[in-house]
């Protein structure tokens, strides 16, 4: 394969089980550099598991994940692929950032510390520089005035915007967004989605979003993956998936979700 044509992220027959429950059943999935991809589908269909595997919060039971043309879930020992060691994972996941449904900010740190902790202690960025960058990022998410506040003093929407700034502070190539608006009060959702739209517009970060916000998925994505029972039921550009879904499973899912809205 020619360099440059290779997908940035490649799932090759990935299997993930939790006990007897097979969540991903030989999944193949490619995402290109700079692409914005949305994962939709009923809960329990394996969407979030894909993000968690990429963040190395879970480990594969079968198959291999590749990132940037190199093995990610595995590593080479000689020319054999063996499950990646903790050290290998630590080094390779630094290119990946994640925003969680429940924000997961560190409540014992100020907003500034939350945003600088990763760059300073994991990437070795000097404190001053990390702090300047934190100010920029907080300006971008509209929270520069909250830099010395603690997370508990912020609304859910504000916390999630800080969490986005924290993830971006690591300068990730890949940003994973796991139902980032699901825990928010309805009136706070728009603010968070606006920030994500801006990131999509201003940067070339590869984004993988698991979301139930169909309008957002339609606006931002280059490609939409419809998941069902650990497999991709259908994928395509948003106009096609939302405008002219081919699969019955997609049709019934979209009907149920859109009616609910």
């Amino acid at each position, binding site marked *: 394969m020619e360099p440059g044509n290779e997908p940035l992220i490649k799932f090759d027959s990935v299997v993930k089980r939790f006990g007897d429950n097979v969540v991903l059943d030989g999944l193949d999935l490619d995402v290109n550099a700079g692409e914005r991809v949305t994962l939709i589908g009923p809960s329990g269909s394996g969407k979030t598991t894909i993000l968690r595997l990429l*963040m*190395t*919060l879970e480990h594969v039971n079968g198959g291999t994940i590749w990132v940037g043309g190199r093995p990610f879930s595995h590593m080479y020992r000689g020319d054999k692929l063996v499950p990646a060691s903790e050290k290998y994972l*630590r080094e390779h*996941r*630094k290119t*990946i*950032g*994640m925003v*969680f449904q*429940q*924000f*997961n*900010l*560190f*409540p*014992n*740190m100020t907003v500034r510390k939350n945003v600088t*902790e*990763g760059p300073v*202690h*994991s990437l070795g960025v000097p404190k001053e520089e990390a702090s300047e960058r934190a100010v920029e990022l907080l300006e971008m998410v509209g929270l520069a005035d909250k830099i010395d506040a603690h997370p508990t003093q912020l609304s859910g929407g504000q916390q999630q915007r800080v969490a986005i700034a*924290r*993830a971006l502070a*690591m300068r990730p190539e890949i940003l994973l967004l796991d139902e980032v608006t699901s825990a928010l009060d309805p009136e706070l959702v728009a603010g968070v989605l606006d920030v994500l739209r801006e990131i999509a517009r201003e940067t070339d970060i590869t984004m993988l979003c698991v979301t139930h916000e169909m309008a957002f998925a339609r606006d931002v994505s280059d490609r939409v993956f419809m998941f069902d029972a650990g497999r991709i039921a259908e994928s395509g550009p948003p106009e096609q998936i939302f405008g002219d879904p081919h699969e019955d499973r997609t049709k019934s899912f979209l009907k149920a979700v859109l009616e609910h809205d």
Partner: protein
Amino acid sequence: MWDVEFTRLLIPALLTGLWVTVQATVLGYALALVLGLAVAMVRRVKVVGGIVFVVTEFIRTTPVLVQLVFIFSLSALSDVSPLTIGIVVLGVHYSTYTAEVYRSGIEGVAKGQWEACRALSLPSHRVWGAVVLPQAIRKVIPALGNYLIAMFKDTPLLFAISVPEMLSVANDLGGQYFRSFEAYTLVGAAFLLVAVPSAVVIRRLERRYAAV
């Protein structure tokens, strides 16, 4: 009748004993705090954690008085002072309690906090030192404080290994002057004098930290 003359004689001696008691408590407690934390952290490691668990359960379920006299008898030929033995035995014994307290605090830290650390690839000294322990310890400060008072109240056990703490001083002088009633009353009063204000302080801490 209360013997005022004897009381005058007794009080300076008791104060010396109280000083020994305070030393044993403070140093033993410091040991319990540090060792307990180490135990709680090591217990999360496979295999080694299992061994540590068995050892701490053994220490926790045998009486501290038995441990004191046992270790004291072992060290009869060495020149380690009884006070040092007392501090170490009390500290080790209480570390098995504080380890449980720390463990509950660590388990109380949300799973999402560990995941966020992982997502930022934080090195483990930051995961523990900057994220997990500050949150875990804050929650268990009142429970840890209670063990300080419990330990203070256990120091008269050191009497059994001839440490000159308060009870032992009172026992000696009370016996010598046939005035055990005054001697033991004053010991009780001295314990109250220290323990009651400490309990008040811990209540305050409890109220301050429980709210978060």
